[in-house]
């Protein structure tokens, strides 16, 4: 296979260059990961998990490896304007696949480690090395293995035990450059016992070149830790995003995760969550708004390894044009994981003739004292509701928009940061009106 060879050769040819200036943990994990990548091979339609998500066209583009920092015209902090009004967040930037330090120092509570993954792995190996790649190395996903083999930098957030970070943190990941770029992105988030934080990660693309993002995020929640994690994608049709998120939750930890895709090309989100100890809770939700040829494929596996945990998945899709939505959700209740409560729901709205939806909601249960359920529904806009609104003088277009907006509403309501919620609501409205070609108020997008 040509693409497979391209990536293998890329790694082999630049193995020594990748070693330069890489942290010990980063470089140490490469060879095993590469061997796994070669053994697994690039995912194709024959791979059950990727049957509706053909990455090959995107992978066949020759991106090369961004080995040296590509100059950018100005610091992202100076041109970036799409932060959330009335919500003062701490902003961090990853441009392509490199972390850009802020010009002004950022103040966070004592002991919190943040910033460049590569640099911080060198500076704090004692607290970070044991977490880096601990979950990803167990994965059977070839793209995750490729990421580990090639990653050069990323973002890290480490919050020591008992520390509460009050102010929301926002990581802006952007693509910049007029040539086709592949970015190998990495995120490491560790919340030790009793810590809490809110993290917003948003993806942007600054020009219309072909971009490929291969991201791996590892999230560790210690005992009683609490994380609100929001992911947002506002890119364009030529962007391919593959994201593998691995989450490990200790006893009584609490996770709220919300993934909102406003504009994208081809997006593949894998989420693998493991409940390691009892009493943990996770609320995972996602909303994908798709048009034209866009594709969004969310694959979520919630692994109830320990009993007494509570998981809730809610994923919604709104599709028009020839867009395709794919949802693969699995609840796995391991033997002995009694008193598990696992709910999963998936609702999809196809608003055009060519839109396609593929859903695979699955339950795999090996314990008896559980309450597990899933539901999946696909349909179109309710004619009665539409008629009701038309009767009251709304134009058909407006009525349809309202109904789509309402459909998306309950995912937006799960955002507990009120200013962010209002902002997302506004963006969704614009998106349905077709006005969202770029992030509002941002000057650097074309």
């Amino acid at each position, binding site marked *: 296979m040509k693409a497979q060879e391209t990536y293998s050769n890329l790694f082999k040819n630049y193995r020594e260059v990748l070693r330069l200036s890489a942290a010990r943990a980063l470089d140490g994990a490469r060879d095993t990961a590469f061997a796994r990548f070669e053994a697994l091979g690039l995912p194709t339609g024959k791979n059950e998990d990727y049957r509706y998500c053909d990455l090959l066209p995107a992978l066949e583009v020759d991106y090369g490896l961004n080995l040296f920092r590509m100059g950018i015209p100005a610091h992202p902090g100076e041109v970036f304007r799409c932060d959330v009004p009335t919500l003062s967040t701490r902003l961090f930037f990853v441009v392509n696949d490199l972390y850009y330090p802020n010009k002004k120092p950022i103040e966070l509570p004592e002991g919190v480690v943040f910033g460049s993954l590569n640099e911080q792995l060198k500076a704090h190996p004692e607290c970070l090395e044991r977490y880096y790649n601990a979950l990803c190395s167990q994965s059977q996903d070839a793209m995750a293995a490729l990421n580990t083999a090639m990653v050069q930098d990323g973002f890290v957030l480490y919050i020591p035990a008992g520390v509460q970070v009050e102010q929301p943190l926002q990581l802006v990941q952007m693509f910049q450059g007029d040539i086709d770029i592949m970015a190998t992105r990495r995120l490491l988030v560790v919340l030790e016992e009793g810590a809490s934080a809110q993290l917003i990660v948003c993806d942007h693309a600054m020009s219309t070149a072909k971009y490929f993002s291969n991201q791996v995020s590892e999230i560790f929640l210690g005992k009683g830790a609490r994380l609100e994690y929001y992911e947002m994608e506002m890119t364009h049709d030529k962007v391919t995003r593959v994201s593998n998120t691995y989450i490990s939750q200790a006893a009584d930890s609490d996770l709220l995760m919300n993934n909102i895709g406003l504009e994208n090309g081809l997006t593949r989100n894998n989420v693998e969550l493991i409940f390691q100890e009892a009493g943990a809770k996770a609320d995972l939700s996602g909303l994908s708004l798709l048009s034209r040829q866009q594709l969004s494929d969310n694959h979520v596996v919630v692994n109830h390894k320990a009993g007494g945990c509570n998981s809730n998945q809610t994923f919604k899709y709104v599709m028009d044009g020839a867009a395709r939505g794919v949802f693969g959700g699995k609840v796995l209740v391991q033997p002995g994981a009694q008193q598990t409560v696992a709910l999963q729901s998936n609702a999809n709205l196809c608003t055009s*003739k060519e839109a396609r939806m593929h859903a695979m909601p699955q339950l795999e249960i090996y314990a008896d004292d559980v309450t597990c359920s899933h539901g999946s529904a696909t349909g179109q806009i309710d004619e009665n509701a539409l008629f009701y609104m038309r009767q009251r003088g709304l134009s058909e277009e407006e009525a349809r928009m309202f109904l789509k907006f309402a459909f998306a509403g309950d995912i937006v309501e799960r955002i507990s940061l009120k200013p962010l919620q209002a902002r997302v609501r506004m963006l969704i409205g614009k998106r349905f009106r077709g006005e969202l070609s770029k992030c509002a108020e941002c000057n650097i997008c074309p």
Partner: protein
Amino acid sequence: MEKSPDQHIIEEVTSGEYKHGFVTDIETEVIPRGLSEEVVRLISAKKEEPEWLLEFRLKAFRYWQTLETPTWAHLNIPEIDYQDIIYYAAPKTESDENQEEIDPELLKTFDKLGIPLEERDRLLHGGTAVDAVMDSVSVKTTYKENLAELGIIFCSISEAVKEHPDLVRQYLGSVVPYRDNYFAALNCAVFSDGSFVYIPKGVRCPMELSTYFRINAVNTGQFERTLIVADDDSYVSYLEGCTAPIRDKSQLHAAIVEIVVNERAEVKYSTVQNWYPGDKNGKGGIYNFVSKRCLCKGYRSKVSWTQVETGSAITWKYPSCVLQGDESVGEFYSVAVTNNHQQADTGTKMIHLGRNTKSTIVSKGISAGKSQNSYRGLVRVASSADNARNHSQCDSLLMGDACGAHTFPYIDINNNTAMVEHEATTSKINEEQLFYCQQRGISTEEAVGLIVNGYAKEVLNKLPMEFAVEAQKLLSVSLEGSVG
């Protein structure tokens, strides 16, 4: 450790005897073990088949040789040695020349199974016409003549090949082609006997038609084939039952059922599958790998699959509906019970091709002991299927902490006018319901029986009367009181 009353009940249930495990002592004509082109030719020759059918078998066999055993199901299938199986076994009747006479031993066997082969008083016996198949041959088909008066053809498929070659040739392999899957290819190569049903235009079949499958000979596999064709405006209700003797060694059963339904016709197909499930340590039992599919070809055609799956060591079975005709309807009702070391991966496919097509799926899984029970289903709405409707409901009940219940639905929507809903729940028996019953003086065992029967009622209600009673009894036998 002191055993709780619940555990006692589970043990009682798991030690429940398989009622149909006897062996009929009858001389059987078998061919040598193994599978090769010669064997395929031999089977064809034994059945005095025409050239085209032999060609069909050989094509399938050659194709099968290129395939590998499928591994996608949530099953742990021990390796099957296809060379260690006898592919043809026929009970020898004393008077081979006189086909009308049936060996009394066979009659006794089927009587013991509750299947009368003599055409006694129709009213007394529920008016069911039976095609009885033992190992590789059809022993007897009852009420053939009465049915023939209405133009209905009900006979063994071997006979149909001889008597109605055009019909068989037209429809055989048209719904499940030999390239469909591994076990279908195998069946096409070596299929032995089964039933053929043709209901002519405008005829409502006045009685239930039924095929009873019995495996008797040792080391054999049963590869039966059923073909049902319902012409315009006709109706038939068809039942299928199956049992096998208790044996240590697992036996393979790979069948194909094809149904073609024409305009405004309706076929109701009910199965009570009670193959020998193996003993409580998971030894022996039937491997039941079945391809069943219905083509709703005509406008407003309808098919309804109802299955009660209690037997077999391993079940791999997905009765499917291809809804090709506009406004055609497909239904699937299933209760699958697994106990001890049984494994089941069963469900359905609803392929919507025509406009205004509707399908309903109701699947109830009950797992106990160390068994694994999976529902696997596909609902596909093609881009041509405007206004398709589907509702699926898959519930699982778990009894005991060592079993598993799984749900693997696939939903493919290629048309925005489709309305597709899927819901599934997994839980154990509701403690409150149990308590309520116990408060009223009903023993735990009986209460669980009640609850399970209530849980499965939606499906059992779809069965024809005679079968519903049998199925209810079966459920009670295998699960009453099995609360974990």
